[in-house]
């Protein structure tokens, strides 16, 4: 009797589960455009701004965007893809991850969802080439970050009669002058949790591009020159000139390693300032605006672009960009993708600030403040744009470079060994 009872219960349970699954699948079919699952790194203000973008599509189509944000995107995404449960779309912070997934044939090409002729009109070749692998478009670039900006306090510069440096030599002599006047010229912070060290690699790539130009830069990124190459050494040493010269950075190496990259941006704008210059990407504007809501862009805080090292490469710009990739080609996913390819989709975010679009159809009038316009202009007028170097390298090389940058700050005399270590990792990773 008792076993019969259990059997009966099992059967009921089984039937219940069956009907649940069939019901839920029937329900899914009923929806029209449906839900699109998107994964990315955004949270906080960025997510709020992105929500305004998604709201436009949701209103237009009646669909629904489900966004899942994680700081450790590479790990989470890799696990989801391995578990055959990827999101429909993912917004990746760099194209290296896109290339890795494309190589494993996990991505869907976008040529069906998107009109290539419109893309050619709206985007420069730089972006289309970066998003293509083997002639197929796998990535749509939606948001650019310019890295070549040095933030400073214009009022302090005017009061002390400091001139904006235009060459590397002027930058160093200005730094020396600030030290001579009993002040500290630079703020620097490379702490960023799991990604600690990337601000140092931004310095190195910026110096490299300005000193050696785009061709050698590409060779470096593709590992066609060894890491022990003189050019790379020179870039490290020039970075060290700023970071390691006594009196240039308050607190020296320990402080650089322990300071969060966001906190570091505050120093030039304190009263009185604890430092006068801070090199970090265009997004720094957001950090400053949030910490000091009373300060006004361009009057109280401003940036100058990275000074010239070699005159042939004056005005070069490095930067990063967020790229959308598609794992599942559902109707909702391709509809949302088409929406994101339009410049007008991003205008709500552009109006909020902290956003520069690679899409040429976004008018400069939509940018909310003079700094955002200045950033958009810098991107549009720069003769040479190069993608963030470490973001294009295999993850293992990138992480070793970040660590190498921090090791260099600690033991600058061990540069040779540090570069050899990166070279060894690179040999196995490419």
């Amino acid at each position, binding site marked *: 009797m008792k076993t019969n009872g259990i059997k009966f219960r099992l059967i009921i349970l089984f039937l219940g589960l069956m009907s649940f699954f069939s019901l839920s699948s029937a329900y899914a079919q009923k929806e029209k455009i449906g839900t699109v699952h998107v994964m990315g790194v955004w949270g906080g203000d960025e997510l709020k701004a992105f929500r305004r973008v998604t709201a436009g599509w949701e209103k237009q189509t009646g669909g629904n965007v489900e966004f899942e944000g994680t700081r*450790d995107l*590479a790990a989470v995404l890799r696990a989801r893809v391995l578990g055959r449960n990827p999101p429909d779309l993912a917004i990746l912070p760099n194209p290296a991850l896109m290339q890795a997934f494309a190589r494993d044939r996990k991505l869907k090409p976008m040529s069906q969802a998107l009109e290539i002729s419109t893309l050619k009109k709206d985007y420069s070749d730089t972006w289309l080439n970066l998003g293509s692998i083997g002639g197929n478009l796998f990535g749509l670039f939606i948001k650019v970050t310019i890295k070549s900006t040095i933030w400073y306090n214009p009022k302090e510069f005017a009061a002390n009669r400091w001139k904006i440096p235009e060459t590397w030599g002027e930058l160093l002599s200005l730094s020396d002058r600030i030290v001579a006047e009993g002040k500290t010229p630079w703020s620097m912070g490379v702490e960023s949790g799991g990604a*600690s060290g990337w601000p140092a690699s931004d310095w190195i790539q910026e110096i490299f591009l300005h000193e050696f130009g785009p061709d050698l830069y590409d060779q470096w990124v593709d590992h066609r020159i060894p890491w022990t190459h003189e050019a790379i050494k020179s870039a490290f040493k020039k970075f060290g000139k700023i970071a390691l010269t006594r009196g240039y950075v*308050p607190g020296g190496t320990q402080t650089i*390693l*322990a300071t969060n990259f966001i906190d570091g941006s505050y120093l030039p704008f304190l009263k009185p300032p604890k430092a006068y210059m801070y090199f970090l990407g265009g997004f720094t504007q957001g950090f400053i605006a949030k910490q000091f809501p009373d300060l006004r862009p361009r009057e109280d805080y401003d940036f100058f672009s990275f000074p010239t090292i070699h005159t042939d490469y004056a005005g070069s710009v490095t930067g990063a960009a967020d790229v959308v990739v598609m794992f599942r080609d559902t109707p909702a996913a391709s509809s949302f993708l088409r929406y994101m390819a339009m410049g007008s989709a991003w205008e709500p975010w552009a109006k909020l600030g902290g956003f520069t679009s690679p899409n040429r159809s976004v008018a400069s009038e939509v940018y909310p403040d003079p700094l955002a316009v200045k950033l958009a202009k810098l991107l549009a007028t720069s003769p040479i744009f190069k993608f963030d170097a470490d973001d294009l390298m295999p993850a293992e090389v990138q*992480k070793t470079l970040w660590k190498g940058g921090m090791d260099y700050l600690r033991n600058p005399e061990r540069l040779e060994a540090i570069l050899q270590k990166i070279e060894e990792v690179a040999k196995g990773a490419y």
Partner: protein
Amino acid sequence: MVRILSVVNKMTRKISLETYFYVLPALFFLFSFLLYPTLHTFYLSLLNQDSSSFVGLSNYLYLFTHRETFLVFRNSLLWLTLFTVTVVGMGLFLAVLSDRLPYEPVIKSVIFVPMAVSFTAAAVIWRFVYLYRPEGFLQIGLVNALLAYVGGSPIAWLVDLKVNNFALIAAGIWMWTGFGMVVISAGLKGIPNEVLEAARVDGAKEWQLFWHIILPMLGPVLVVVVLTLMINALKVFDLVYVMTFGNHDTDVIANRMFKEMFTFGNFGRASAIAVILFLSIVPVIILNIRRFRREERV
């Protein structure tokens, strides 16, 4: 007695097939969730990065011959010894002392609270505690603020190679001392008062009481605490992941395994680390099982 045994014997012989049938689900789960993954991990550890070709023991060789991964083992060993010894020591100290206080429950609750905080939250809290600003700036991290108050210069606790591993372990100790204390305290309550009184009547001093009666009688409890802590020390992940992510020479086995697997996508090396972690926990588990058996016999 003999009759019962023979009946049981008959029964087992008669329904042995059925017995196996009933054991089958357990065996199935044991195999599919424990045995198979273990064997598969070992197999993967002999393959290369994306498990496409056989590389023999070279993953293991790599782990033991590189400075970076060598440091990982050093740090885990440091956790294993320092963390375990300190937590047991502090737990014993607090349990014995609080046992003699009238407001014992209050003290024990306060010390036990960190146990209720998730590892990640604790790590975030300790990041703030260790926060560092250069000298001459306003110190907002607790430790450096105290240092500044007594006139010392601030220390970058999570960055300075001389102290950062100890700083991380201190956070772990803060979390686990409560556990050690509560379990040891329970053991302490199990020591019959008569024994202690008899010793006192015989003229034993309190110190002698502690060394010759309390400590030996706590033996089995201490073993449980030590073994549990050792396993936890080897498995520690969240604290390191959140506080330093293993940067500045603070990586530990579990964190490195995660990095190799998910950050670098190197399945071979990640599996090799998993196997090493597994093998290093096995002796502790064996000790634990032996102790269980002994207790069952008693």
